[in-house]
């Protein structure tokens, strides 16, 4: 008992001292569980997020935009992989994480339950959704769990390209024909509020926050991060000559922040609970693609088995020939 308290005290002292926790360190069960949950849901968000944008790869308006979008969607898949691997350092298994997603025991960011209806949505997603992701992820680069923090450094660097390419699309449309500008405005109208909601419920309604703060998994409150996003995005919209769809939006001189009208948290809760425009489609697509890919996983396993058997045979043969010593070094690709 005293020993457990010692461990816990040392763990917390490390965190208070801004040191990172590494996979082999002792950590409380709840810390491990919280991180597995958060990191796996973050990974799911990256992967599910490929769907709305992926539908536009074949319909991008130019080869340039197509290659950019393809790179962006590929990056998001990579982000998913960095994160699943980080969760695996905590003892989570990939299969269990995917099963939790399919069984609806794990969530993903609610924003991806909205459809990308026009090409302008690709601009709005890159600009707003990736901006919001960056604002959420920058403090995570200093998260107390080392592998998560380090994955976040890579991710943030790549997100910055995502945000820029999105804004670049918005600039093109907003400075184009009146129809193009209208498309950009329409996309902003539809993506604005869901993006604002990406930071989660207001602080007074948010559970678990205090503990995550004490563990330095979370460093800023939902309200602080949301405010930061609003202040930045409103200015960026002005430069585009587009209007944020909020008649109550006003600049508050005293605090130096923009104040928005009421945020529709009922809608947010409804979408989180599964009743957004695309919830079913997103999960069904993921399940179907995962099942369709089963033969690839089986083929990989069969190939590995065959290779291992072959290698064992070769080793036996060489041992017979008295050449066992040599064999370690010969196979190409295994030399430094």
């Amino acid at each position, binding site marked *: 008992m005293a020993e457990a308290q010692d461990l816990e005290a040392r763990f917390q002292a490390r965190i208070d001292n801004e040191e990172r926790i590494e996979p082999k360190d002792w950590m409380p069960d709840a810390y491990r569980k919280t991180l597995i949950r958060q990191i796996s849901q973050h990974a799911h968000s990256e992967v599910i997020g490929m769907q709305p944008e992926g539908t536009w790869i074949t319909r991008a308006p130019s080869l340039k935009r197509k290659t*950019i979008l393809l790179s962006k969607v590929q990056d998001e898949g990579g982000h998913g992989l960095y994160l699943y691997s980080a969760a695996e350092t905590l003892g989570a298994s990939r299969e269990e994480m995917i099963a939790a997603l399919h069984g609806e025991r794990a969530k993903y960011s609610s924003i991806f339950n909205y459809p990308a209806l026009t090409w302008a949505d690709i601009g709005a997603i890159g600009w707003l959704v990736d901006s919001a992701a960056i604002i959420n992820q920058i403090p995570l680069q200093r998260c107390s769990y080392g592998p998560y923090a380090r994955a976040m450094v890579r991710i943030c660097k790549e997100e910055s390209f995502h945000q820029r390419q999105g804004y670049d699309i918005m600039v093109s449309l907003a400075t184009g024909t009146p129809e193009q500008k209208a498309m950009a405005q329409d996309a902003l109208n539809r993506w604005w509020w869901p993006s604002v909601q990406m930071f989660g419920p207001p602080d007074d309604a948010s559970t678990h926050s205090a503990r995550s703060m004490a563990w330095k998994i979370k460093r800023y409150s939902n309200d602080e991060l949301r405010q930061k996003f609003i202040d930045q995005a409103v200015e960026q919209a002005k*430069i585009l000559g587009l209007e944020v769809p909020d008649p109550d939006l006003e600049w508050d001189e005293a605090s130096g922040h923009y104040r928005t009208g009421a945020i529709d948290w009922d809608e947010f809760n409804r979408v989180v609970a599964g009743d957004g425009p695309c919830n079913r489609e997103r999960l069904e697509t993921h399940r179907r693609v995962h099942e369709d890919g089963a033969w690839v996983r089986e083929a990989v396993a069969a190939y590995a088995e065959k290779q291992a058997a072959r290698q064992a045979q070769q080793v036996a043969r060489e041992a017979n020939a008295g050449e066992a010593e040599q064999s370690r070094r010969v196979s190409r690709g295994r030399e430094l």
Partner: protein
Amino acid sequence: MADTMPLYEVFVRARRGLEHRHAGSLRAQDAEMALQYAREIYTRRREGVSLWVVRSGDIVASQEEDAPAFFDPADDKPYRQATWYKLPEGVKNL
């Protein structure tokens, strides 16, 4: 005897929170001893807080002749860098 000792690669984590970085290699008769030697050879001046040793033969490395096929495809994709995009005058936090 000495030439039958396998080669190990040594990785040192300088501070908690940083990744392990390759420091060099050494020969040892087993992993346990490699760790001891690594401590003596690579961390005599508080260079690290954690050590990894890995059998060199267990590292799968790309080959020099594969480098063009592996890495050149990134050469013509400058649009993957944020700095490739021109921003309008005055825009902040992008």
